[in-house]
């Protein structure tokens, strides 16, 4: 009777120590959940969700402060992926935070630009090139299309231009079978 008790006690002690040591050894830095949520988010850093960037929104979701349907650039697929990850019911996008738009990039009308640098300060990914009293321009390949540069521009010289389809980014379409109009008398041709 006592031996059994000692064995169990010893086992509990040994396992407890192993667990304790491994918890120290294999400690995970940071919150892996935030990183996983952040990986799903589109990283436009547009702030439409109500948080100042994708990472803060990811943190808010992880904490349970924010809902999964506040990211319009992520679209429906993004909301689904987030619902999947968080193990919650899928919700359609909340229209309060805006609607999904086709991906576009900002474009500076260089004739109008006065070189005030306000857009440079607003750009969350440093995708605007320029200096005080010098013309600014957008690095199109780095632009996330967040539209944050539109508001600060005092001369409204920035517009959003949807990305055009080229043979480079063209995609094969989902196969559809064309529907043919049947003759009125119903006979098959």
């Amino acid at each position, binding site marked *: 009777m006592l031996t059994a008790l000692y064995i169990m006690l010893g086992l509990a002690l040994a396992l407890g120590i192993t667990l304790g040591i491994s918890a120290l050894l294999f400690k995970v830095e940071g919150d892996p959940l935030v990183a996983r949520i952040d990986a799903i988010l589109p990283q436009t850093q547009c702030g439409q969700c109500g948080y100042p960037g994708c*990472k803060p929104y990811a943190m*808010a979701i992880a904490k349970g402060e924010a809902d999964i349907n506040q990211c319009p650039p992520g679209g429906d697929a993004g909301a689904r992926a987030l619902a999947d990850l968080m193990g919650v019911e899928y919700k359609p996008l909340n229209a309060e935070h805006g609607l999904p738009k086709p991906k576009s990039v900002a474009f500076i009308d260089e004739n109008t630009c006065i070189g005030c640098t306000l857009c440079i300060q607003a750009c969350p990914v440093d995708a605007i090139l320029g200096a005080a009293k010098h013309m600014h321009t957008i690095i199109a390949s780095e632009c996330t299309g967040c539209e944050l540069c539109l508001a600060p521009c005092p001369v409204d010289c920035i517009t959003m231009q949807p990305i055009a389809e080229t*043979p480079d*980014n063209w995609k094969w379409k989902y196969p559809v079978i064309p529907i043919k109009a049947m003759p009125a008398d119903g006979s098959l041709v």
Partner: protein
Amino acid sequence: MNSIIQFASRLIRGQTAETADVHKFHGGVHPEGHKQLSTTLPIAKLAIPQKLVLPLRQHVGYIPKIKVQVGDHVLKGQMLAEAEGNVSAAIHAPTSGTVSAISEAVIPHPSGLPDMCITLMPDGKDEWTTLQPTDWRNSDKKALVASLRSSGIVGLGGATFPTHIKVRADGKSQVHTLVINAAECEPYITCDDMLMRERAHEIIKGMEIVKYLLNAEKCIVGIEDNKPEAIVAMSEACKALPDTSVKVVPTLYPSGDGRRLIHLVSGIEIPHDKRSTDVGIQVFNVATVLAIYRYFTFGEPAIDRIVTITGSVNTPQNFEVLFGTPLQTLIDAAGGVQPDTSHFIMGGPMMGFDLPTIDVPITKAANCIIAATPDLFAPPPPAMPCIRCARCADACPVNLQPQELYWFSKSDNFEKARDYNLFDCIECGCCTYVCPSNIPLVQYYRYAKSEIISADKAKEAADLARERNEFRLARIEREKMERAQKHAERAASSKAENAKTETAKTEEVKAEVTGAAERPAASTSTDDAKKAAIAAAIERAKALKAAAAQPGDTQNRPELKAADTPKTIDKPAQTEDEQVRAEQAKKDKQALIAAAIERAKAQKLAAAQAGVTPKNVEDASPAVKAEISEIDAIREKAKQAVKTHDSDSEA
């Protein structure tokens, strides 16, 4: 059991000794060949057309950089666009003439979208630029490969992969076998067949060059057994080159696929995640080898190719066509189309695509143009549901599970499709060919592939954006820290200096005064010193004025206070220097006042704008709530801007 059946079928078919040692790959189909249509006439040279349109995108990889301008007169073989980046190919003028436009035009691409093209108006002289043949036997291999980069030669079998990359030694693997792809398994296409019949000796010379470049030990030419004339011609020519053999492979689509052909001729199956060079084999198309021969022996870059024009044209034939020739010219040369022609297919009927319009040029990829009629290519019957008969799996030459891939692609389950090795699919169309439900399987795979590729690109862009955003936040934080540190340092040093300079100054001034009294007749050296001091003072005053004009710059104010204010008043024996100083001190004060006013104004302005400007620049890490309010403000403004923009555009 399988081996018995194979043995029996071999007996029945009465295979020759040559085909006995080929290693059959899994699957494959036997579509109707239709090759005899275009093999009755020899290869003809197409006359120079009225206009040549050369798309920049004629190969796999980066588009080349344009080297000419509109209005330039170019000679035949002159480089029009230069290879840019690693995977890219140059484009040369197919004939002499004038560049009339560099603009967008429809290119032969399944999208039917326009792309950048160089339009050349031939002058009819067909005048060559100075060609530089290379003595390849006595040249450095690296130099040869480098020169091949500017040859514009790409894989002419249809894949259009830049050739210079394929002969480049990567240092990892040694190629021991060169396989020449002459299988030409797709129905209708006969350009390689005719090329081998007519120019076998040139092809052999090209093989010799490629073999030398690759350091290969042996060379195998794989030809399907439906091209007896080509087999004879090549076998005859191959006698001139040691360690070279012609291997006849049975006619089975898709034996012309590189990996399938390697399997057929050598029995080696290349792992799906490896390249053929990893096992020491490199594959070249016959036409590519010929182009390499012409480039090194005559210096001729890639300016033309053999194109099969067949289908419902009046005289199907192979033509030697300059790149950029309008399709219509080629069709006219083939006697025009029959009246019921509905559309044109570029490439073969299995892997090719319907041309969006007839107004497209012939490019490096155009091995075959088929004029299609509803009789030849009946529109596919409506697709029926998949019955999981797995006939597609039996036909798949890559040993995939096409029916599974179909389910995943159809339901947008892309991750799963990727797991089932969707990207190993060569889009040969065998599955579509055998499907009893007429499901356009390859179209689903193409759709899934391009969706996955674009999602991957988006992910890459998102990762880049995240990195840049994090770097920006870190930078702002760092700048803030640096600023705070600077402030602290300056505050500390100005305190210490205040105390020090006051005593030092008074002593200095005293010494100066006594010195002046001792030597009233000033020597030249003190004069110079004085002048310098005056000049310095004037300059300082100027700098101060400038500083006053720029209120943001507050750098040198504390020193001014410390250095210049205390000493002006009680010095009765004022030297010239000190008069200047006194004046300057007055100016200093004015400047300081002006600067202060300016600063106050600027602060007021900033305070007024604080509500609307994106202030997350200034404070990167404070409480989330503050930031939310800022973002709200920004969005408010954005909404207004959009509204006004909308109303503007409406107006």
